[in-house]
């Protein structure tokens, strides 16, 4: 198989994981203009909880994933009401609060489960599927499928359901939404809860593919940030495009550039694209900002 084609496929596979991470972040940002830096640790907790439910409660992987998503949804609700709502409008303090959460949660995970990586083996999905000369596990393909399904589901939900429309309205203008009677508070906490549930989904899906360890959310956070930035901060298709592009650039760059600069190269490409199009690929130009 052509080396370039191989790397493009690798990039798309990795990129789909970035998309999954970015989806949770883009929803929260779109509605509340909050960059949830704690998204990475919530992803990690999602992985650990799925592992916990699977090994301690009941050996059904889908159930473990759903339970993990539910738990994180509740945590997201609590975070929105307890931390982010009081800090609404204050960008600096939101950033600090997110960072404080990262410290507390990541170290809590270590305190409970220890620093070593845990192996989350789900035998059903360990099977390998050949794609040309490459082989991917069923888990990895399932991730792509689920990510696509989530993107579609999110799109349908936002466009065609009543509450989804309410969410879109609130993201366009909070005041106008209040004027027409949209329950803005409910929109906020449910968006946050959906976002954190998506983070949990990411962790729960990645766990069996690799390992479950305390820093598993750190790199995905940075990639997710880069993806939504590239895609245009509040845009779902943007998050998809951003994640995919990042994944492909990273993989393809290893063909001819020093691999220790792989991350930097992806960033350079991101910045270059943004310099040409500052609002991101799918972002909307805000009036009055330039």
């Amino acid at each position, binding site marked *: 198989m052509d080396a370039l084609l191989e790397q493009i496929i690798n990039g798309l596979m990795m990129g789909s994981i970035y998309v999954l991470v970015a989806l949770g972040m883009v929803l929260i940002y779109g509605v509340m203009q909050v*960059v949830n830096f704690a998204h990475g640790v919530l992803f990690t907790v999602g992985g650990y909880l799925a592992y916990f439910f699977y090994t301690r409660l009941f050996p059904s992987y889908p159930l473990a994933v759903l339970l993990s998503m539910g738990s994180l949804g509740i945590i997201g609700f609590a975070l929105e009401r307890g*931390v982010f709502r009081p800090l609404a409008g204050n960008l600096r303090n939101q950033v600090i609060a997110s*960072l404080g959460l990262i410290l507390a949660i990541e170290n809590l995970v270590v305190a409970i489960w220890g620093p070593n990586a845990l192996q989350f083996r789900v035998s059903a999905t360990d099977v390998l599927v050949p794609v040309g000369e490459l082989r991917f596990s069923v888990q990895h393909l399932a991730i792509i499928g689920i990510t696509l399904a989530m993107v579609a589901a999110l799109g349908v939900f936002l466009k065609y359901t009543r509450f989804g429309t309410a969410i879109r309205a609130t993201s366009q203008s909070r005041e106008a939404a209040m004027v027409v009677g949209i329950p803005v508070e409910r929109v906020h906490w449910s968006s946050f809860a959906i976002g954190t549930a998506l983070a949990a989904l990411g962790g729960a899906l990645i766990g069996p593919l690799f390992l479950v360890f305390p820093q598993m959310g750190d790199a995905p956070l*940075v990639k997710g940030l880069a993806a939504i930035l590239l895609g245009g901060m509040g845009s779902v298709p943007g998050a998809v495009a951003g994640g995919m592009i990042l994944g492909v650039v990273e993989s393809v760059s290893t063909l001819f550039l020093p691999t220790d600069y792989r991350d930097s190269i992806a960033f*350079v490409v991101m910045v270059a694209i943004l310099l040409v199009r500052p609002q991101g690929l799918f972002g909307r130009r805000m009036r009055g900002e330039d």
Partner: protein
Amino acid sequence: MARIAPWLALLVLLTALYAMPHFAAGQPYVLHLLILSMLYAIPAVGLNLMLGYVGLVSLGHMAFAGFGAYVAAVLMVDVKIGFWSALALATLASGAAGAAIGVVCLRFRSHFFMIVTLAFGLMLYSVMNNWDSVTRGAAGFAGIPRPAPIAVGGESFPFGPLDHFYLLVLSAAVLVFALQRLVVHSDFGRILAAIRQDERLARARGVNALLYKTAVFALGSAIAGFGGVLQVSFLRVAAPASFSLAESINMVLIVIVGGAGTLSGPALGALLFVGLPEYLRAAQEWRLVVFGVLLVAITLFAPRGLAGVAADLWRRISSRRAQAAS
């Protein structure tokens, strides 16, 4: 009377700090902690000017400290220049790097700006970590010297001993804080405040906002570089881990928790950041959990940071005193 009081307090404080080696004789660890606090406070001043006074939340600030540190390391160890010249050159270099990178980052706003500075910070870190031939790579650049002894009143004053180096860092910190005050109270500082309050209005009145923001970004980076050189001279090694994303994030915490946009904020934040984990040492892994929870609590209950809390307390005390007097 009220005008003189803060200056008097400052004088007393400075005297106490300069006399610290005497008070802490036999407790070098106290001096060590104070030095570390000041080494954190200096770059924090740079970030405070950017973040506190102009609202630029940079997540890559410590990368500029690293830039200055490594430039000085190469100058001192490979090119064999003395400490003072290396310090000056490295500070200028950091300022120049800040200007160059700032020009790119400042094309973006708020969240975009934050993430782009994060990206640049990571890129600089990669260079520090990967460019083995120059920076000695991930293992660190060891063998960085303390400044050569200077002649003081006919005698030689070396900087190897901890208390001597403490005095050097203290003087550097005083210089940087004095500079901060100068900048904030100058015309330059007033224009920065205007930009922060309403950039469009400032621009309408003829201010080249981009130029001023780039200037403060460069100044902040230069100060960071200055601090970075002192830090690696203290540790006698420059390692990429000292200038990572985690450290840049710590800097943001220090500035905001201390009180962004205040003159004493960077100092208070740095002291808390160094001192609190020391108190929590007994808690081991829970130490960082407690620290994280405290941070969240501070944002919720003391949003203007420690300086804000201190200012509120002072106001309450002085108003009560005024009431009692009447």
